């Protein structure tokens, strides 16, 4: 593989929160235009992996190449400008801003982001509640907003953490559609999910994490064959 095809390469990544050592040498690769999931049990370190990529954890070491650039020593805001969009697990809606202000907040990091109109067609709830303060939105509306927010920025590498959480089934189905659509537009997406049923049909590849290490890699083709192993690892 070379730098033309791979957008993200993580090698020997260690990350800490204070004294606790969470990631113990992660290695994985995400190619351009791929959808990849990180699976694992609660507390396995999936969220930490995404945060570490953006430099949001405590100390980290190893190597993270984004688009051919080493980012391990870079400041968070500079990493973001390499074209990364992040949707955090806890959603991170700003309560002091209205829904629309939240939506407009992240600055564009590359050209080609979606327009406001496109986003509103995708999430009509948000259009209706656009002037409502962020913290007044319902749980699900906040989730939609958190995703919609990064679609505007033009970021081509999306890190999505538990985006199907707290959403009505009908919206979850729609989100699956959105991800396919994004993939077809050439976006590269890393998904962290509990909801295997949601993630499985979308991904080109699954990485299973346990105790801060990749313990299994499953490509789409191998999925059926390795189902038992996944059951064992994830308790599905």
């Amino acid at each position, binding site marked *: 593989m070379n730098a033309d095809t791979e957008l993200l390469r993580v090698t020997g990544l260690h990350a800490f929160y204070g004294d606790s050592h969470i990631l113990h040498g992660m290695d994985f690769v995400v190619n351009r235009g791929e959808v990849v999931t990180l699976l694992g*049990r*609660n*507390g396995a370190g999936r969220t930490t992996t995404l945060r570490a990529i953006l430099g949001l954890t405590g100390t980290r070491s190893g190597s993270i190449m984004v688009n051919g650039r080493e980012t391990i020593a870079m400041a968070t805001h500079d990493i973001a400008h390499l074209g990364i969009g992040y949707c955090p697990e806890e959603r991170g809606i700003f309560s002091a801003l209205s829904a629309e202000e939240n939506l407009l907040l992240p600055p564009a990091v590359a050209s080609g982001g979606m327009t406001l109109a496109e986003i509103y067609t995708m999430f009509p*709830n948000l259009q209706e*509640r656009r002037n*409502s303060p962020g913290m*007044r*939105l*319902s*749980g*699900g*509306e906040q*989730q*939609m907003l958190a995703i919609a927010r990064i679609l505007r920025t033009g970021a081509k590498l999306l890190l999505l953490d*538990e985006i199907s*959480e*707290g*959403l*009505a*089934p*009908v*919206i*979850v*189905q*729609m989100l699956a559609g959105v991800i396919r659509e994004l993939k077809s537009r050439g976006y590269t997406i890393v998904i962290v999910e*509990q909801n295997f049923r949601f993630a499985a049909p979308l991904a080109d590849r699954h990485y299973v994490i346990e105790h801060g290490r990749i313990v299994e890699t499953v490509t789409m083709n191998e999925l059926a064959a390795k189902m038992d192993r996944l059951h064992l690892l*994830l*308790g*599905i």
Partner: protein
Amino acid sequence: MSDDTILETRDLVKEFKGFVAVNGVNLRVKRGSIHALIGPNGAGKTTCFNLLTKFLEPTRGSIRFNGIDITRERPAEIARRGIIRSFQISAVFPHLSVLENVRIGLQRRLGTSFHFWKPEKSLEQLNDRAMALLESVDLAPFADSITVELPYGRKRALEIATTLALDPELMLLDEPTQGMGHEDVGRVVELIRKVSAGRTIMMVEHNLNVVADLSHTITVLARGAVLAEGPYAEVAKNPQVLEAYVGVAD
């Protein structure tokens, strides 16, 4: 109102600056049942919970609990009547020990909560009961740990134990399985089933497996109003519900 109705709302309305979040909801919750409240995002489920526990003031309408009008009461009073809620995010007292967490729930009924001159020892009479409650949610071995250190799933369990300490007649659970791994979901479902004996439970939940598994009655809200009501099998076939909430299975 018949005896087997524990909670009833009439034309409950909540407006936020011109936006109607809950629009004339009539609920009737049967005593001893598990009643699920589902609906699309923003349908008004959490708002309903907030109205029932008076964390929000209804714009119109009335709430009756055990035949008594509680529409004008304050949150703490409602809680003392036996309506206890859980939160969408876990709600424990992080820097108290696990045992103390449960004891806070038990303590209220001693009636000494304002007694600043009584020693803490006076609370130790509650320890047995607290341990029993912890036992019931498999937390007994952790009794002396500081709560922050517990994993997420166990915190949820502790929260339920604390709620049970108040021996509520009616428990309101807002998305109890959200953010949990598959094993934890299973454990919580079992737990809810276990504690539902002898009390009434209302819950909001998006995980349809859980809903199907647990609930006797389901009320579907959409845009602040009741769209459908009935047992799972019936509701799940309702075309309106399919369209607004469940989506067409692919």
